[in-house]
């Protein structure tokens, strides 16, 4: 499969009153057409802002690093350098929605409450598909039908508050996909839903992705969800990717202590009598980033004098896998 999105060395800094903070540092990942990359991490690990940077949705105080390269290959095969498109330009507006679609965590909040579902869908369809109002309406009904909303012809004239949470997220998926994106960024799309609804929505997204051949970036804090939907996974901690590889292999055989911790924190039916094991400690504030490996303050296996002193480099413990941890860098440590 061809790579449709390649992100290299993504660093994002913000000017704040307390000085410059850099919540994302040197993040590298790629998305292949038709495949799903899962971005996993706790809140504040930089997952969301990394994807917002792709769409240039960050506030004006944000700055991209000098070595940051984000290349997106559009539906016509043209390479586009993301992150530096002119604000208000036609190209940027085409990328937003038409090439890369985005779904957010709160379906209620991502719809405007004062326009009907249909109004907001038709706006996107007319913008990106060049359809007239009536055709756009027909297309919107078709899309609502496709995401499993019954009686779509009537639902289209309803306001977001008249739909249930699960229906709203289905409608948001329909809205985002109706613009015809080749890459879908889903930012915790199921976190705010009931578990049963969550499973239905995940199935729906998987099916639609296969049918439309889209690439997908799926952001979540839940490795269990990753197991269901992602082909590849990148685990983020405090703005860097600490481990990446094929989703099944990473889950079956995690290499980074943080990934192991996240997996231990998932409840399982076999071990119901055990207490859940949370990852100890809190994620440090980006204004107060630890020296050395960012995870050493919470890591049970941290090596004193090394992990707290030097930042580990990315190594390849086995083919197709990458991990950023001193436990796997015996050979590199002497070189560093």
């Amino acid at each position, binding site marked *: 499969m061809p790579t449709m999105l390649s992100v290299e060395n993504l660093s994002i800094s913000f000017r704040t009153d307390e000085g410059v903070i850099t919540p994302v540092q040197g993040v590298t990942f790629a998305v292949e057409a038709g495949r799903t990359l899962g971005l996993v991490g706790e809140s504040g690990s930089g997952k969301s802002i990394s994807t917002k940077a792709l769409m240039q949705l960050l506030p004006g105080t944000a700055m991209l690093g000098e070595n940051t390269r984000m290349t997106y290959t559009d539906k016509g095969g043209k390479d586009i350098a993301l992150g530096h498109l002119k604000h208000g330009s036609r190209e*940027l507006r*085409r990328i937003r929605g038409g090439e890369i*679609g985005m779904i957010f965590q709160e379906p209620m909040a991502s719809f*405007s409450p004062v326009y009907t579902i249909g109004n907001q869908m038709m706006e996107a369809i007319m913008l990106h598909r060049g359809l007239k109002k009536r055709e756009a309406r027909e297309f919107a009904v078709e899309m609502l039908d496709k995401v499993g909303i019954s009686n779509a012809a009537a639902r289209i004239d309803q306001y977001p508050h008249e739909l249930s949470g699960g229906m709203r997220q289905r409608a948001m998926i329909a809205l985002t996909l109706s613009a015809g994106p080749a890459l879908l960024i889903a930012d915790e799309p199921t976190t705010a839903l009931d578990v049963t609804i969550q499973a239905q929505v995940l199935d729906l997204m998987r099916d639609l992705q296969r049918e439309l051949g889209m690439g997908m970036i799926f952001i979540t804090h839940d490795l269990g969800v990753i197991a269901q939907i992602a082909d590849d996974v990148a685990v983020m901690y405090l703005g860097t990717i600490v481990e990446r590889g094929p989703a099944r292999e990473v889950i079956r055989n995690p290499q980074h202590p943080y990934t192991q911790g996240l997996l231990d924190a998932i409840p399982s039916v076999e071990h119901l009598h055990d207490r859940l094991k949370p990852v100890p400690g809190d994620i440090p504030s980006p204004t107060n980033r630890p020296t050395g490996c960012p995870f050493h303050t919470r890591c049970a296996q941290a090596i004193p004098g090394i992990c707290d002193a030097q930042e580990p480099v990315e190594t390849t413990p086995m083919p197709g896998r990458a991990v950023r941890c001193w436990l796997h860098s015996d050979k590199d440590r002497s070189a560093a």
Partner: protein
Amino acid sequence: MGDTILLRFTLERFVGMVITMALVSVMVFLIMELPPGDYADRYAFRKYSGTGVNVTEADIEAIRRDLGLDKPMVLRYFDWIGGIVLHWDFGQAFAFETSVTKVIGDKVWLTAGILFATLLLTYIVSIPIGIFAAVRRGSAVDYGLTVFSYLGLALPNFLLALVMLYFANRWFGADIGGLFSAQYRDAPWSAAKVWDMMKHLWLPAVVLAWSAVAYQIQTVRATMSDELNKLSVTAARARGVPETKLLIKYPARLAINPVVSTIGFDVNRIFSELPIVAVVLGLTELGELLLKAYLDLDMNVAGAILLMLTFAIVFMNFFSDLLLAWLDPRIKLGA
């Protein structure tokens, strides 16, 4: 389905408005009854004071009977309100020895003109500026507008009226006070007279709108800043909606909610400030007449004016409710 909800909402609010107006009319009537003595006393006093005629209790009783003032209060209320509703007849203005309708005359429409000019000016200026300040939050323009706002809020408007009168006089000639130039003051209505009025109307409108503009800029700026941070705005931006269209369609529509919901307050405030501004600018409108009516204890005139002003406020509240329901469809559901 949506249409029937809207219709029911409108009907409910309309009925609410009519009930409020009825209650207001009762209150106004009671206020008219408050001053000691009654119309007959004062009528007799005015008619015969200084003439040397000795007025007896029987004379006053005769006047009272003549004017129907001996009837019970409830009946008199219905006579009064019935005359207004059925014949636009507000009774006698004894201080002027003519009907209230004649005394008030054109002043109703002039007052309405000042009111609408002021409201229009307030919203046309404050809404776009508030939105602009929110979009450019933290910029030099934003800070400049904030300073202007505080200045606007701090400056009493009779003082502003004096200052503006002075400068308007220097720049636009001597004839800027009042609502008409001398040659039109008593002329019948014509296109030229309307135009002449327009040329005078801006000054009281600016003076009266001044503090409201300052206040509403801050309101719009604050709500617009909130709305700009909403996920729905980011989501719309992520769908490639062009920025100007996006700002107007999504955050701005909701940001003007607090402005729309306070139209009634603005009307109220304009009416309270109008008499003082009117005195300074030499306008002849209802507020100024109201002050005079109070001084003369001419309660029929005062009552008529009070009734009109409060009806205007109640009606504008009704209008603001409808506008809000149109702006935010969630409101209809809560009705």
